[in-house]
């Protein structure tokens, strides 16, 4: 499987990564190489094989509906890039 320039650009857009034009050829090449490597699995017949998401096939445990977290805003917002009046600030959101 080899990718072209526009594939790389659209993947980067989906992943919200700014890629300079000059970097695109290198990404195109290495990502295509990686896909060549993984494409070996296409040769295996996996008909009727149930995908394995958790190695132990475990099931979900449930949590009691009890409030355990108190207000930690001050502590948590210490690491925020930009916060004011208790809000995280981001460039204007347009709906």
């Amino acid at each position, binding site marked *: 499987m080899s990718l072209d320039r526009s594939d790389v650009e659209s993947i980067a857009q989906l992943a919200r990564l700014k890629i300079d034009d000059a970097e695109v050829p290198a990404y195109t090449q290495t990502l295509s190489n990686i896909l060549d*490597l993984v494409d070996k699995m*296409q040769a295996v017949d996996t008909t009727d094989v149930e995908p394995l998401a958790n*190695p132990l096939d475990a099931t979900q445990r449930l949590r009691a509906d009890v409030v355990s977290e108190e207000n930690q805003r001050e502590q948590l917002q210490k690491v925020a890039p930009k916060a004011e009046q208790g809000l995280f600030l981001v460039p204007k*959101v347009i709906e």
Partner: protein
Amino acid sequence: MLNKTVAELAKGLESGEFSSTELTQEYLTQIKSEDSKYNSFISVTEDHALAQAKAADESRAAGNTTPLTGVPIAVKDIFCTQGIKTSCGSKMLDNFEAPYESTVTEKLNAAGTVMLGKTNLDEFAMGSSCESSYYGPTKNPWALEKVPGGSSGGSAAAIAAGLAPAAIGTDTGGSIRQPASFCGITGLKPTYGRVSRWGMIAYGSSLDQGGPMTQTAEDAALVLNAMAGFDSKDSTSLDKEVPDYTAKLSEPLKGLRIGVPKEFYSEGLNSDIAATTQSAIKEIEKLGAVVKEISLPRTELSIPAYYIIAPAEASTNLSRFDGVKFGHRCEDPVDLYDMYTRTRAEGFGDEVKRRIMIGTYALSAGYYDAYYRKAQQLRRLIKDDYVKAFEEVDVIMGPTAPSLPWTIGAKENDPVSMYLEDIYTLSVNLAGLPGMSIPCGMVDGMPVGLQVIGNYFDESLLLNIGHQFQQATDWHTKRPA
């Protein structure tokens, strides 16, 4: 005091030969004078360590001890430590002081250990060489121009260099075992779910597992005792009783059934590594074990399966690094999209970006079935191979890695060649099994590791084998000049 094992240090602390404060000071001094050669630490937490050491000495004086009270330990900088920089080797988190504590470090704190600092790693644990860190590569203490392995390369190098008696690592595709092999130490990846992932920054959530990196199997047992256990904050944590991992160390290996997969000794393996690991297996045979050849036919397929599943999970695990709530944000974003794309482009290094992009692609519409679903199907087949193998044998052995440590920079622009180096370790994570690497010989002046893979929850058996081997051999005592 340096170059003692955890077990020996525990004895010295117990007998009053030295205090934790003296011991900690000794290590801190050593790190300060020596680590510039290795770059194994990202942060040295001196004040914090001395405070913990003082507290440990006080609680010992009060008669309040655990087997690890006062023992210094280094922690991979992927575990959140409250109020202490937790970088994950990334510019993205260069300014991040975690506002909460990981379960693993909380348990270590409760056991009275002293954290010397946070060790270097491949950025977000994505790598097999410890070169992709924002803080520069860690160097292999056996040969400074070589990689220490990765991603827990800082932890492995710190132990090999005598800068820490033990360390904590994480293993998603071999990240404890391979650097342990490259640096000549013991490293154990427990069964998936045995050690809590709470506060351990996620790479591949269904594969990640924390574990001990030590000088001996006995030490690994001591440290794992403090780390393992059920955690209600982690849905994937196992609610299963944790044994005392030191209890079976001394059991004889008579009758132990060892399987050696023929696929682990095929094309691509360095022939000296093949010979070294085979003679180590012979050594264990002499201790009473029975060896038979087995087959793990999908070994090679673990590379494609892993290099889809891990990046896919990573691609979404890393979406939270968006410049909104914590971590790096680009300067003066013009709008939201600009903030996202520049923040992430600046904050992440090349290998992280590559894996995010591969993962994004593998999950995208039209490709999901061919990549992600297919990889998860292969994952089941790979697990099934192991389950079948363990019907006939108790453990599986072979090399930890196919090659010796390579020169720093050699594979920089060729990620695929680096991925191929993970061939023997990946399937263990895909299946969720416990795996261990122990030093078993030297080739060209570099250490070689023997990988021992156990059935689910058989950590005790792995440690027992490691300990017995280390009683009969002295490879684990070798240190770089």
